[in-house]
């Protein structure tokens, strides 16, 4: 049956609220492993010795298995303890709505995003950064500058302040917010120092 429209995040919330209640341990230890194994057997998936698949049938079977995993199993909201369902048609509507071209950053520092297919001769976007690794206050700007100044880097990803003004940047405290704001200021300074103020982050 055709979907009425792509789902919004509010539609997803509404479905969670009306969804079936399932204990989280049952989801983790029973629903996920049993359904994944069932689909592995249904689609006869067995990876060979190659890291990257060269067999198109394996790629297609894995895609079908993953799509069926989402549609048949549904999706779990940890806070509500409930499972929402989605149809295959709604999944495809969501995929159709997703942008396939994006621009990250601004000015002369933009990175253009296009789909690559297979091993395209165009390299992927290089997002350089500590990827959430803990960085001390004293060297945060320099660490981020070390990425921003690399010519091969197209975009940045932050590290995380472990402290702020000598206090631990503890989760769910005002210090966490102050540390986050300080990270943003430091990352801006690092981009300016590297001569690339418009790099996306």
């Amino acid at each position, binding site marked *: 049956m055709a979907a009425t429209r792509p789902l919004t995040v*509010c539609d997803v919330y509404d479905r969670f609220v009306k969804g079936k209640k399932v204990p989280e341990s049952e989801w983790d230890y029973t629903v996920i492993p049993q359904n994944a194994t069932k689909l592995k057997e249904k689609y006869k998936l067995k990876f060979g010795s190659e890291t*990257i698949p060269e067999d198109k049938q394996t790629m297609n079977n894995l895609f079908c298995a993953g799509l069926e995993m989402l549609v048949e199993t549904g999706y779990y909201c940890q806070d509500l303890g409930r499972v929402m369902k989605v149809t295959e048609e709604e999944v495809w509507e969501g995929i159709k709505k997703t942008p396939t071209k994006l621009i990250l950053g601004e000015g002369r520092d933009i990175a253009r995003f296009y789909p690559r297919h297979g091993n395209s001769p165009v390299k992927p976007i290089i997002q350089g950064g500590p990827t959430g690794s803990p960085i001390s206050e004293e060297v945060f700007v320099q660490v981020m500058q070390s990425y921003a100044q690399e010519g091969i880097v197209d975009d940045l990803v932050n590290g995380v302040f472990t402290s702020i003004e000598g206090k631990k940047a503890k989760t769910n405290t005002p210090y966490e917010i102050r540390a986050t704001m300080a990270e943003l200021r430091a990352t801006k300074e690092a981009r300016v120092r590297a001569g690339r103020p418009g790099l996306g982050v």
Partner: protein
Amino acid sequence: MTKFGLKPHDPHEVSQLNELKIDMSGLNMIAGWMANGDVIMMEQMPIFGGYSGGKEETAICDVATMVASFALFNCDIHLDGPIHIRWGTTTTRETLQIAAHACAALDRNTDLLLGNQYYTLAGPCTEMCLLETAAQSMTDTASGRELISGVASSKGVTQDRTTGMEARMMGEVAGATAGMDVAEVNDVLKKLVGLYERDFSHAPAGKRFQECYDVGTVLPTDDYINVYNRAVRTLGRCGLDLSIF
């Protein structure tokens, strides 16, 4: 929004939970960013050896998770990162295979924008860290990823143990791999992964940023440049030529 804060064209990152789960804070962040027209990057790192089980089962969950990012949560880019339950890294033989298969499955059937993130076992200023990074970069590039993100060296958990030199390796390897025949990439990977996986149980911690760079000039030390050049020569012996970079 502050003058130095994220702008709509910066990727706003939110996480799914393992496996096929989310919490209310994730939904709420997405609702705000959607209303503001922000670029949304959704991440999830499926665990090999965790709830889903083996390689194929983890790859099935990975595909389902990626599709959910777009179809349920309105994101623009999915940031993957299959991770090994024993080693806590993305560069093991099994997790590279899971990432490559899941990406190739979506790449063949959609135009979605797919990324992957890097967590190495070894720390900065070691050849092992650079070889781990190179193996994943080859894998991601040849399986069709649009973005690669890193590197969280030392598994991303030790203070000040990440530097721009690891990102240089990630990017230069991607540039050299792009356009290569996939069978040839697989041949290189067989040699390359075998070189470092035997050292997982005693991976070198490497050095802190302050020991890898001159903090005043933000230039890498001669020591790190030498380690980098040694890794480039090792990659050349495996069949990947970085000499044009």
